[in-house]
């Protein structure tokens, strides 16, 4: 926000304006607190926090360390608590809170996709087609399975001591593949495949039908 020597200023007009605009889209959202980039909490934070305690009851202060001290981008959250001798010098202390990340499914899928840019050279990824996605998902499961296999082999060869809970999880995992009579499974599989093929055929038929209609209309 500002260098320590200069008094800090917050554009309250701007903040109010943006909040009004935002409320038009999501009328149920409230201000919960404020964030700042930077490594530590300064005296300025106290002042700004005071301002926000008027906007929201017990505001949360979030810091995102974009200067990457300690080689990590640490994200921390604080609430302010009063401290000091009551009746005499009172101060404000920022007590840290635990930060957890929660996602809902679509968000999770979006984040997973965006995360892939970490692995590409120029940080660019394209959106993949249908079957490629299934391939990607099965590759992920394959990786997970190989980790599990590695663990099992280690236990068998005695490198790692066996853990009962893990063993029980593995048992339930293997038993999750349902035991179906092969003939029944064949019929199920075939009927499903037939349904899908029929739908594909109908879709193609519809497409050629409208193309034909186009040609006839433009004769």
């Amino acid at each position, binding site marked *: 926000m500002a260098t320590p020597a200069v008094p800090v200023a917050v554009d309250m007009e701007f903040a109010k304006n943006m909040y009004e605009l935002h409320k038009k889209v999501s009328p149920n959202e409230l201000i919960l607190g404020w964030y700042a980039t930077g490594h530590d909490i300064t005296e300025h934070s106290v002042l700004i926090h005071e301002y926000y305690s008027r906007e929201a009851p017990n505001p949360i202060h979030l810091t995102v360390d974009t200067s990457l001290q300690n080689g990590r981008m640490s994200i921390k959250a604080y609430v302010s608590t009063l401290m000091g001798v009551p009746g005499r010098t009172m101060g404000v202390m920022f007590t840290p809170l635990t930060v957890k990340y929660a996602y809902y499914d679509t968000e999770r899928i979006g984040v997973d996709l965006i995360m892939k840019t970490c692995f590409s050279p120029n940080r*660019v990824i394209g959106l993949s087609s249908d079957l490629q*996605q299934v391939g990607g998902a099965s590759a992920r499961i394959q990786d997970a399975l190989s980790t599990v296999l590695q663990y099992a082999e280690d236990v068998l060869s005695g490198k790692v001591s066996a853990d009962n809970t893990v063993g029980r999880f593995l048992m339930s995992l293997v038993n999750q593949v349902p035991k179906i009579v092969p003939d029944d499974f064949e019929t199920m599989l075939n009927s499903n495949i037939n349904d899908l093929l029929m739908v594909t055929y109908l879709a193609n038929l*519809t497409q050629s039908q409208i193309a034909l209609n186009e040609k006839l209309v433009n004769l």
Partner: protein
Amino acid sequence: MASRKEGTGSTATSSSSTAGAAGKGKGKGGSGDSAVKQVQIDGLVVLKIIKHYQEEGQGTEVVQGVLLGLVVEDRLEITNCFPFPQHTEDDADFDEVQYQMEMMRSLRHVNIDHLHVGWYQSTYYGSFVTRALLDSQFSYQHAIEESVVLIYDPIKTAQGSLSLKAYRLTPKLMEVCKEKDFSPEALKKANITFEYMFEEVPIVIKNSHLINVLMWELEKKSAVADKHELLSLASSNHLGKNLQLLMDRVDEMSQDIVKYNTYMRNTSKQQQQKHQYQQRRQQENMQRQSRGEPPLPEEDLSKLFKPPQPPARMDSLLIAGQINTYCQNIKEFTAQNLGKLFMAQALQEYNN
């Protein structure tokens, strides 16, 4: 929808002066060639769109918003976006243009790109090829040549993979929309097929290094995703819904075709009647001449036989385009499911 169109139209024209220098200057592609070959989206925009739908969209309502960014050579870079409030009944005095202007002005203060480059919309099972979308996109593209519309399909995304597509109107369709002439002859002249209405622009997602650092942080802290929706076999509900929508559209299309056929028949019948009338007139005139009487005056044929109204062909084009989209979606879906079924089969075989 009407006020939304006007809003975007006037905003687009007023902001084209700000976007003009950046957008139009760099956007002149070759004639007939599209100005934008690729759309580059920031991860931030993707997440914002997802969040907007999650919080404000329910059921069949669409959520919309504006995309901000800039044009670099033949790439359209989208760096930020902001959502548009829903159209509710008690918003009679809500000024959308003002909202947009306010938003852009405020964003300029925090150094966010404030140039309009397009808009986004969520869709319900892929049914987005409507007249409203066409009009909005036309007004956007008319003002800012490189604008795209991003279509986000939340239901398909919930099935396992992000479904985000960027569309533009083809130059030919732009011409037709400019003329506002949707009669059969005009469309035939322009030679537009339903496949050539919208063109899809490939999307890439790009993140800054700082965001990549954040991603690494999140990866460490967040639990492994416990839902592998993509590999679930029980997704026939989705297919059923898609097929139902497809059937509705096909019904609409057949009605439209019937209308067109009746029109054609009426015109041809009218032509015949005109022809017969003319012939009778000529015969009578010849008879009268032979009898020495003055010939009957030539009556104005066009007043006697009013030609029937040609039906607007735009709607049928849109329906055809929509059917095409549905079919594409269905085919993608069946391809995925076939793959999954074969995997299940392999698993079973190994078990036995």
